[in-house]
């Protein structure tokens, strides 16, 4: 199959959807500039021009309300935030207004819209440009929340979002923007509420989100050489959540490690652990483990940043610990190669 980068997959999805649906428009700070949100809105701007791809003032709160007002009227706005950290300013409109609109007005109107937010990582993004707002969005009923881990999923989820009858939040990982993978040229959708089994295995279930999926796959590759067989599940959408696939997997392996790109406390990793500790309890052979960010803001300095983020190595160590194994795996291979050279 043809391959495409994550960012180009997003771009292609937007362009194809806009081609099909004249009600779609994209707006947000810098969507029409020469960088085009790291390349994701450039082609859409070129193709559809300033009427459908346009810049905005820096007014995140109002823009979410404007998104809502346009969506209620049959438009399908795509609101873009170059960092999802800016969405804290939009949470009142997103959670108090958009997420509740259909419910409180008894289903008589709906709010078809997509909010794209990018989760930063590395090269000193610092305390306010590297957070992940996924848990907040998944906590409150009414939103679809998805976190694509591959070009394939990125395209499928955006196309799904753009035909969903309600507000969708897609949180992309900046660190994945240049990763390449197979992506069909056709339009296709990836359903919300469906997990993606990235690798079948029998020993340990690793639920990994977003940019932790490649780390988990790398760990699986390394451990395979030692006869350890990981099952890697990407939940893909955090809300609705595909509990079934995770539960079935744990029933088979008896072990769960949840690797999230977020703080653990009250995060999605806690939700996965809780669901499993309830519904797959009888199959669990060992404690449920979670891996995520250190519980601090994300510091700039590289020595600290490297400690802040979990890596493939943490996954391997946790697997070995769970299985009571000690194998001389290649630690070099387990390092995260960081090719990002800034600035954002």
């Amino acid at each position, binding site marked *: 199959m043809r391959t495409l980068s994550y960012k180009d997959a997003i771009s292609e999805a937007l362009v194809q959807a806009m081609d099909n649906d004249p009600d779609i*428009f994209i707006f947000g700070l810098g969507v029409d500039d020469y960088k085009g949100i790291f390349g994701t809105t450039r082609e859409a701007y070129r193709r559809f021009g300033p*009427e459908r791809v346009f810049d*905005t*003032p820096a*007014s995140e*709160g*109002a*823009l*979410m*309300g*404007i*998104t*809502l*007002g*346009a*969506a*209620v*009227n*049959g*438009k399908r*706005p795509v609101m873009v935030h170059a960092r999802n950290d800016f969405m804290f300013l939009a949470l*009142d*409109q997103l959670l*108090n*207004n958009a997420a509740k609109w*259909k*419910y*409180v*007005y*008894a*289903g*008589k*109107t709906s709010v078809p819209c997509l909010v794209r937010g990018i989760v930063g990582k590395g090269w000193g993004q610092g305390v306010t440009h590297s957070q992940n707002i996924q848990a907040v969005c998944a906590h409150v*009923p*009414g939103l*679809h929340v998805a976190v694509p881990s591959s070009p394939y999923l990125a395209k499928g989820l955006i196309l799904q979002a753009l035909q969903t009858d*309600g507000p969708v939040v897609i949180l992309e990982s900046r660190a994945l923007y240049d990763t390449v993978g197979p992506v069909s040229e056709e339009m296709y959708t990836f359903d919300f509420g469906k997990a993606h089994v990235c690798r079948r295995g029998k020993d340990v279930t690793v639920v990994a989100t977003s940019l932790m999926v490649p780390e988990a796959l790398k760990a699986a590759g390394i451990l395979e050489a030692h006869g350890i067989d990981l099952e890697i599940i990407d939940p893909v959408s955090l809300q*609705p959540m595909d509990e079934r696939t995770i539960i079935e997997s744990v029933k088979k392996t008896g072990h769960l490690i949840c690797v999230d790109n977020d703080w653990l406390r009250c995060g999605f990793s806690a939700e996965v652990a809780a669901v499993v500790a309830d519904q797959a309890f009888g199959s669990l052979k060992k404690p449920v483990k979670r891996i995520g960010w250190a519980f601090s803001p994300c510091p700039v300095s590289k020595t600290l940043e490297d400690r802040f983020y979990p890596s493939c190595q943490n996954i391997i160590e946790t697997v070995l610990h769970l299985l009571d194994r000690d194998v001389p795996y290649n630690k070099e291979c387990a390092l995260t190669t960081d090719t990002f050279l800034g600035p954002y």
Partner: protein
Amino acid sequence: MNEDAYKNIFLTMLRIRQTEEKIVSVYAEQNMRTPTHLSIGQEAVAAAVCQALEPQDQVFVSHRCHAAYLARGGCLDAFFAELCGRVTGSSRGRAGSAHLSSVEKHVFASPILGAMIPVAVGAALSFFMDRLPKIAVVFFGDAAVEEGVFSESLNFAVLKKLPVLFVCENNLYSTHSPLSVRQPPSPIYERIRVPELLSRQTDGNDAVRLYQTVSDLIPRVRQGDGPAFLECLTYRIREHVGPLFDYDRGYRSQEEVESWMERCPIQRLQEFITGQGIMTQDEIEEKRKEWSGQAEASYQKALKSPWPEGNTLLENVY
């Protein structure tokens, strides 16, 4: 002079008043388990503005939303049923008073201060993009202009010249807080003004002037001159939330409340209507009774209506 318009405005005001007086008289019965912000004393604003709208225009409102709902012709049965939490309510009992809506009449309310202001702007953006001759109107109180989302929304609307009418019902208080502890002394319509914005102030209890003002503003908004802002000076007669009087609570004086009662917008328009021979005193009294009776009938009907089924709780979340 537009006799029909004034008559309609008057009847709308009367209908709002009689409907809300019904709430006043039955609220203690505890059948309306929903915090309720009455518009008594402020009816002219919604009535006059909505008279100047077209049916396809959209209206967004704050917590004090009954007047706009009724002025747009929202269904009375669905109104009382919603307040009583019944499945026949306009939102099938999900919304209550503060999130009141009539999807049919394009009215949507939310009690989060300022929340509906950008939504109105977004609606206007869609009209602009789709080249529809509609406008969006948003009603809000004097406190909503203190929320940052107001100025963000205003900037966007002015920038894009969107067809939205911002109507600020300045009733001098936010809950129990006078303007003086929340904003500098200059008038709101001047303070929020930007050179590109049509911004006006008017007596919000003078329906005739109000109607003339909006009749001037709305065509300009509709034809693409950009948004307009209208500050309406008015006064809430009852307590902030609930049906009672509250001038014994210290935050405002009985004299102040009474002086505004004397400026009752209904009384004022009534004098004009009868003076101009548009309606007689008797006709008015008849109407008053009619609306009152309709309110009572709708309330009673609501009480006989079914409750939502418990198992529908999760409907329409997605």
